[in-house]
């Protein structure tokens, strides 16, 4: 079982160049990509895949995973808010020569309002910790931003992992964004 799973892992990490006009966003994407086991390189270096915010990479000869923007023939196209696991899957897929498209609203189906179990509801503080986590901040940086002790950050982190059923920081961010997508109510 574990041997078979091991064979599915890529032998060499993929080289991924990231294009975004927003430095913070670029840093968050770079962190997401490197945590998935890929190597982040500069836009003018040799890369297997380009991860780009929005469309408009005319003349790019490498495989592109586009986040948001409009249809421009990129090999991969995900919504702007795609989570780490989707971005990782898209990078691997386009590097393998596949085309990736996310289902549109028409494919999503007519669904019920999602409501979390009351024991799994996050507190406002946990949501703040989560937002910092999504930006790739370390526990120390989170403690500084929220003006709380490192011990308290660890306490919130444990509670977050438990409520979200996540084992890693990346998984926690992915699960929380999925939950937010399903459970946000427009009123």
């Amino acid at each position: 079982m574990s041997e078979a799973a091991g064979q599915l892992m890529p032998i060499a990490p993929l080289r991924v160049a990231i294009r975004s006009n927003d430095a913070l966003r670029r840093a968050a994407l770079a962190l997401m990509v490197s945590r998935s086991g890929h190597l982040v390189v500069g836009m003018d270096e040799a890369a297997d895949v380009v991860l780009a915010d929005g469309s408009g990479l005319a003349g790019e000869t490498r495989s592109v995973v586009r986040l948001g923007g409009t249809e421009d023939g990129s090999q991969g196209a995900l919504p702007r808010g795609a989570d780490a696991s989707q971005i990782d899957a898209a990078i691997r897929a386009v590097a393998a020569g596949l085309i990736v498209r996310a289902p549109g609203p028409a494919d999503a189906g007519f669904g019920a309002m999602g409501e979390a179990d009351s024991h799994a509801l996050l507190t406002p503080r946990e949501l703040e910790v989560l937002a910092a986590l999504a930006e790739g901040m370390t526990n120390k940086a989170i403690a500084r931003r929220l003006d709380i002790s490192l011990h308290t950050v660890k306490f919130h982190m444990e509670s977050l992992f438990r409520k979200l059923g996540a084992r890693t920081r990346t998984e926690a961010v992915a699960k929380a964004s999925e939950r937010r997508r399903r459970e946000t109510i427009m009123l």
Partner: protein
Amino acid sequence: MTDQKDPLVEFSNALVARTETARNAVAAIRLGHGRHVTGILWPGGVVVASEQALPGREEDFELVGPGGATVASRIAGRDPSTNIAILKPLEIMAAPAIGSAGQARAGAIALAVGADGTGGASARLGIVNRAGPEWHSIRGGLIDQRIVLDLRLAHREEGGPVLDASGLCLGMSTFGPRGQVIVIPTATIERIVPLLLKDGRVARGWLGVALQAVAVPDALRESSDQSSGLMVMSVVEGGPAAQAGIVAGDIILSVDGTPAHRFRRIARHFGSESIGRKSEVRLIRSGAVNTVQVTIAERRT
């Protein structure tokens, strides 16, 4: 000769007969590029369809009625919150009388009928996989019963009638999440169609906020007397909440005294009758419980 008494043959013949009857109740709604979806000929001279299956920008659709005659039609109303749209054919299309089935029960036979695009019908047979209580859609619409079918459906068949074993109409077929086939119950359609005929839409109350359920911090449980609330994630500029000074980060505890533990509880407060009402919204802001007054507006679509 013994065929006549063979229960399986009788069962099959009964399904054929039902499908032939239902053929007169379906129309193909042409979408262009040779594609179509299904609509139900509904009493009152309208065609009921699945709102999500119709392109948002289009107003005019060609219908293929029973027998294959084409009729022009125009959208007369759509309600994304219950996934119901109605089209008005420009020529009269007779709707056969199909009785309304009562509550669906898990295990019961379900026959889903679609329009084949040339005036005939296509059929899908399955059973009711799950029958549950009423539910709220992600857009806040109330659906009278949860009905999940175990059958497969083609996209062109979405919006057709789903019949029970006695040939009564359980409702309209549509796709739920992950390709699941669900039914919008007849009771919901009967409730929404008159509203759509009157106004072209179903008016709902609106605050102009995006909300997420959160746990109330321990320190505030006593003063707020609640363990959960709805946190404001964003505020629509110029909307009723923004005008009342509600900001992102506020945690709504109750609306006019109804606790906002869960959206379901307060959903009923935002029906068409709520528009223009001055509501008391109790909320937590910067660690203290406050009350603000908000004038509920009509939801923009």
